[in-house]
């Protein structure tokens, strides 16, 4: 037995020793460096949506609006355009050429005036004063005017000359304003030349008085001038250097998301009284088409475009659907997707209600 035990021990020692040497720390598996593929999940909407571009430009791979000309002013602007502020409205064709002509036209109009005031100084200054007042729309600008009135004619001329230049510096885009301006002052001057004269004398003392004057004199004129000074819509503030390419007028999501559709459905469903006894009716499906204005209110009457053709219960179902649409009228929907829900067709199916 001793021989057996010793041989066994020796054998095990040899095997274990061999195992420790040869089976120690198996080699680490060599894993080939596989490049990982970046996977982007792109919603189909991004492709289906109309992307802002130039409607007249030729088709390119990527729609792009007309290249902008001004330097970048807003850092994180989203909308492309030449505007100073970031507006979502698409850029309108620039009406510059025309206004420039009209803008030049008004200054001559006041200039001829000074010569005429020479014989009659008092009535004419009033004509000038209303003009500069609306232009700067600031108190600082308003102050010099009264002084000019006190000073003889030559001074106002220079003041008038200065005013337009300051206009040109401050608001180069204000070109359109002159179109509206010339008419109202003339009309007002024609109406109430007498009132202004006494008031103007008080003006140098109080600034508030001048403002009250302007209110009484030409509120409409001022507002009109202010309104006109603003460009109707100028696009965004992001700058684009791309070649203009065919695209939509505005970047719009043409589809409502599922949750937004559910929201609309829920809003309508609340007001829908399913016609009683219509549980077994399989063909009571009604489709109602209606238009909405940007505020979410109904625009025109809803129309039944499908179903509700027969008499009795079918007609009742159609009417109930129409009533539901009318009852819930102002709908709350994302205003930025107005294009998508301007016109809606809703399918009413009583089976969904049971």
């Amino acid at each position: 037995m001793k021989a057996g035990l010793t041989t066994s021990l020796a054998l095990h020692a040899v095997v274990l020793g061999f195992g420790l040497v040869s089976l120690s720390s198996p080699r680490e598996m060599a894993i080939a460096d596989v490049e990982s593929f970046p996977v982007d999940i792109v919603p189909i909407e991004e492709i289906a949506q109309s992307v802002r571009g130039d409607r007249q430009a030729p088709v390119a791979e990527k729609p792009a609006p007309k290249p902008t000309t001004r330097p970048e002013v807003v850092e994180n602007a989203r909308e492309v355009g030449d505007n100073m502020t970031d507006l979502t409205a698409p850029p309108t064709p620039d009406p510059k050429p025309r206004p420039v002509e009209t803008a030049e036209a008004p200054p001559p109009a006041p200039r001829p005036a000074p010569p005429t005031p020479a014989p009659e100084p008092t009535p004419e200054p009033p004509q000038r004063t209303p003009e500069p007042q609306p232009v700067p729309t600031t108190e600082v600008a308003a102050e010099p005017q009264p002084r000019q009135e006190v000073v003889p004619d030559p001074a106002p001329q220079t003041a008038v000359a200065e005013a337009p230049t300051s206009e040109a510096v401050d608001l180069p885009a204000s070109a359109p304003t002159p179109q509206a301006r010339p008419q109202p002052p003339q009309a007002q001057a024609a109406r109430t030349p007498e009132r202004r004269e006494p008031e103007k004398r008080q003006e140098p003392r109080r600034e508030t008085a001048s403002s009250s004057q302007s209110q009484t004199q030409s509120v409409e004129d001022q507002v009109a001038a202010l309104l006109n000074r603003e460009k109707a819509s100028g696009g965004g503030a992001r700058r684009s250097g791309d070649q203009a390419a065919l695209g939509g007028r505005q970047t719009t999501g043409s589809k409502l998301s599922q949750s937004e559709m559910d929201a609309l459905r829920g809003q309508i469903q609340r007001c829908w009284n399913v016609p009683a006894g219509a549980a077994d009716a399989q063909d009571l499906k009604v489709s109602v088409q209606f238009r909405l204005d940007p505020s979410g209110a109904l625009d025109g009457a809803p129309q039944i475009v499908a179903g509700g053709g027969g008499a009795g219960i079918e007609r009742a179902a159609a009417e109930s659907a129409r009533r539901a649409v009318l009852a819930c009228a102002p709908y709350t929907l994302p205003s930025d997707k107005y294009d998508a829900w301007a016109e809606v067709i809703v399918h009413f199916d009583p089976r969904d209600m049971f």
Partner: protein
Amino acid sequence: MEQMALAAPGGDHSIWALFWQAGWVVKLVMIGLLVASVWSWAIIVDKLIAFARMRASLTRFEEIFWSGQSLEELYRTLAERKTSGMGSIFVAAMREWKKSFEKGVKSPISLQNRIDKAMDLALTREMERLEGRLGFLASVGSSAPFIGLFGTVVGIMTSFQAIAGSKSTNLAVVAPGIAEALLATALGLLAAIPAVIAYNKLSSDAAKLGLRMEGFADEFSAILSRQIDEKVPLRAAA
């Protein structure tokens, strides 16, 4: 558990390291299996040697026995030595024979019975010597895999507990514990496979040797019975 936590990624994955990283239950199982393997191999080696010797001695004895040598002479030479196998059967039978004739034979039938019994006894003793410890091989062969499996299950259990504690399902955290647990099963199989093979071979060898000895015992019994028949009536007649 602590060891499991330490055995996290990287480090030494040699068998020795795996053993030291294991929990105490698994360690105990591994040590037990190693001891069982050592002991079963000791038995295997011992039995192989013993069987080879037995076979050789049987062959030599048969040669001598059938060489026509006088049985009395053979008995005298063998009685002095320590015998095994057929030799001891022969010696047992001859001793009984001698004792019976020294005291005088009353009945030939009872003598024949006594000699057969003595030979059976000697044969049984020889077989016992041959087959002894083979049972250990059998039990190692059948139970070692289960013991190894037990170690593995316990090891994996603790390993998973450690994984739950570390709150990481990284394979680098999971793997060492499982590898270490599987080492127990590997050791169990390592002990069991040779034990089963050796048991089957050794037990069939032992059966063959037993048959050979039984054949010799039967033959010798027949020879002695002839002798008794020749001698006893003579004495009875005289």
